[in-house]
C-alpha cells in the first residue's frame, strides 16, 4: 500500500499535520507502526493504542484506532487494564524514553515481568523533546542537555537489556534509517504472544542534536546508518569494532506463559471452587 493510502486508512481525517518538528523521526516510527498493522491486516476496531505524555505520545491522537493519550509515564497501567479486561484487543503502547524509563520506569519493568501481551514501541530520541531538551535515562553520558549544560554525569540505561532483565519475552531495536527492519520487528512484536518491546531510535535534531552538535536531521540519520548493525553481523564483530555501534533486529525472544491467558486459568480454578 502506498503511503498516501496508508495515511487515508489509518490516520484520522483532519488531525494532520502533526505537531512534530521538521526533521523529527517520530513520523517514520508512527508510519512503521501502521505499516506493521497493515501487514497483519488487523481490524482497526480491534486495536487499542495507548500513549503517555511527550512528543511521541502525541501519535495516539493521529491514529484511527481506540486511542488513549494517558498521563506521563502511565500508558502501561492503562494498557494493562484494557488488555486484561478485554484480551481480544491488540494493545500497542506508544511511549518515549523519558515517559517509559523515568517516570514510567516502575510500570515498564512490571509489565515486562507479567509478560502481558502488549507491544511497546519506545521512541528513543535520547531527550525530553516536548519540554525543550532535558536529559532522560536514555541520554548518553556526557551529552549536553538544557538541564546538563556541562554534560550529564548520569549513566544511561540500555533499555533492551532492562526489558530482558525484567522479563520481556520479545526485545528488538531498529532505527528510523533502517525502516524495513523497524516495520519487520514491530510486525513480529505485535504477533508475539507476550510482552514485546521495540526500541525505535529516532532523531531529535532540534532538542538533542542541536545541543550536541550532531548536525542536520539527515546527518543524524546517517549516524543511525553508520552505527546500527544487524545482530548477526554485530555478534561477529570484535570488541574494538563494536565500539560506538549498537545491534539492531530481534535481540531476544523467549516463550513464557502470557498473563491474560494465565488469569483465565485463575478464573477456571475459582469457578471450580478450587484454591
Amino acid at each position, binding site marked *: 500500500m502506498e503511503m498516501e493510502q496508508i495515511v487515508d486508512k489509518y490516520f484520522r481525517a483532519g488531525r494532520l499535520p502533526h505537531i512534530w518538528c521538521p526533521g523529527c523521526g517520530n513520523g517514520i516510527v508512527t508510519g512503521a507502526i501502521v505499516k506493521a498493522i497493515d501487514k497483519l491486516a488487523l481490524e482497526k476496531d480491534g486495536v487499542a493504542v*495507548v500513549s503517555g505524555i511527550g512528543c511521541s505520545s502525541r501519535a495516539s491522537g493521529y491514529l484511527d484506532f481506540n486511542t488513549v493519550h494517558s*498521563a506521563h509515564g*502511565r500508558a502501561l*497501567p*492503562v494498557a*494493562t*487494564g484494557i488488555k*486484561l*479486561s478485554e484480551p481480544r*484487543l491488540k494493545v500497542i503502547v506508544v511511549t518515549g524514553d523519558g515517559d517509559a524509563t523515568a517516570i514510567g520506569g516502575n510500570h515498564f519493568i512490571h509489565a515486562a515481568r507479567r509478560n502481558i501481551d502488549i507491544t511497546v514501541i519506545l521512541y528513543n530520541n535520547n531527550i525530553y523533546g516536548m519540554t525543550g531538551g532535558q536529559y532522560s535515562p536514555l541520554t548518553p553520558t556526557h551529552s549536553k542537555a538544557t538541564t546538563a549544560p556541562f554534560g550529564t554525569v548520569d549513566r544511561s540505561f540500555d533499555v533492551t537489556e532492562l526489558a530482558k532483565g525484567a522479563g520481556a519475552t520479545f526485545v528488538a531495536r531498529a532505527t528510523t534509517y533502517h525502516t524495513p527492519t523497524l516495520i519487520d520487528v514491530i510486525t513480529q512484536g505485535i504477533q508475539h504472544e507476550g510482552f514485546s518491546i521495540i526500541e525505535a531510535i529516532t532523531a531529535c535534531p532540534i532538542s538533542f542534536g542541536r545541543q550536541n552538535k550532531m548536525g542536520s536531521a539527515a546527518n543524524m540519520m546517517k549516524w543511525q546508518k553508520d552505527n546500527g548493525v544487524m545482530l548477526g553481523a554485530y555478534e561477529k564483530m570484535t570488541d574494538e569494532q563494536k565500539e560506538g555501534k549498537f545491534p539492531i533486529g530481534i535481540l531476544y525472544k523467549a516463550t513464557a506463559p502470557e498473563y491474560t491467558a494465565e488469569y483465565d486459568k485463575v478464573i477456571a480454578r475459582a469457578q471450580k471452587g478450587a484454591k
Partner: protein
Amino acid sequence: MSYKTKLMQGNQAVAEGAIAAGVSFFGGYPITPSTEVAESLARELPAIGGKFIQMEDEIAGIGVIIGAALTGKKVMTATSGPGFSLKQELLGYACIAEIPLVIVNVQRVGPSTGQPTAPAQGDVMQARWGTHGDHPIIALTPGSVPECFDLTIKAYEFSEKYRTPVILLLDEIIGHMRERIDLPTSYDQIVKPQRKLPVVSPEEYRAYKPDADLIPPMAPFGTGYRWHVTGLVHDEYGFPDGTPAATQACLDRLHAKINNNLEDIVLYENYLMEDAEIAVLAYGGTARTAYASVDAAREKGIKVGLFRPITMWPFPEKQVKALASQVKHLIVAEMNFGQYVIEVERAVAGKIPVTLHAKYNSEAITPAELLIAIENISKQQ
C-alpha cells in the same frame, strides 16, 4: 428479596456492594486499613468471571482501572491516605476524561505514614481538592456496615450516570468495624447501574458531545466506536483544543453536569432534628458517636439533633444553610484538626455560632466527650 444475616466488616461490605453493583474489575495495591477490600475481591471476582490485579504501585492501581473502564467495565480501586495522595494524578485524569470509576479511601491518621491502623477523617479536603485544577467531585461517606454496602452501589449509580470518578470515603472505624448486615441472598435483583451508550452510528459519534443532561454517551473500546481519550482540554471529539473557548466549555460542562444535579446527589440524614435547638454535624465513624451523645443529651432534656452528611462532596450547602435557620448553635464533630468545619462556617456565614469538636490523637471521639460538648453549649443558651 430474601436476605441472609452476616457479621461483617465495613471493608468487606464495600466489596459485597461492588459485586452487587456489577463490578468486574479491581486493581490496587495493599495498604492498611483498606486491604480487606482488595482481599475480598481477589477471592470473589474470578469466581464470577471478573478480574483482579495487584499492581506495582498505587498510581498503577488507578491507571489499570481506567483502562478497564474504557472497555466498558465497572471498576474499583481501594486505598488509604498515602495511596490516596498517589492516586490524585489519575483521579484528575478520570475527571477530565470522564471515566466512571470508584475509589475507596479508608482514612487513617496522617500526614504521611502517620498511624496506619488508627482512625482519622483527615482526607476530607484532599477528597475535594487533592488533584490539581478545578474539578467537581462526588464523595460519599458511609456511617455503618450496611451503609457501606448500599453506598457502594450508590457510588456506581452516580459514577455511571454522571461519567465521573466517585470517592467512597470510609474511615478506619467504619472500615474495620464488624456489625450485622442483612445481605440479599442473590444480587440478581439488584439494579445494576448502567453506563449510557451511544445511540448514533460510529461515524456520527463524538465521544464528548453531551446530551441535554450534559453527559456524553460512552462507547466501550472494541465495539466499533474508535475514539480518543486524553487528559488535555479537548473538543467534542475528544481531540486536544488549546483555545480559551474550548477550555471554558470543557471546564464549565464538567462542573455543570454535577452541580445541576445536587438534588439527586446530595444525600444526608436528619436524626432527632424536628425540634432541635442545637445540631451536631458528624459523619462516618464520628456519627456513630454522635447518635449516642444526642440520645444521652435528649435524656437530660436538651433539644439536640444530628445532621449527618452522607454525600460529603458536593457540599450539602442548602441543607447546612437550612440548619443555620433552624437551630441556635451548630457543633461540628470530626476526627481531624478541623476540615469540614471550614466549609460549614462558610455556608453558615456567621448566622449562628459554630463550635468545632475536633479529635486527632488516633482515638475515636467518645459519646461522653461529645455529650459534655453538647451540655456546655446548652448551658450557654
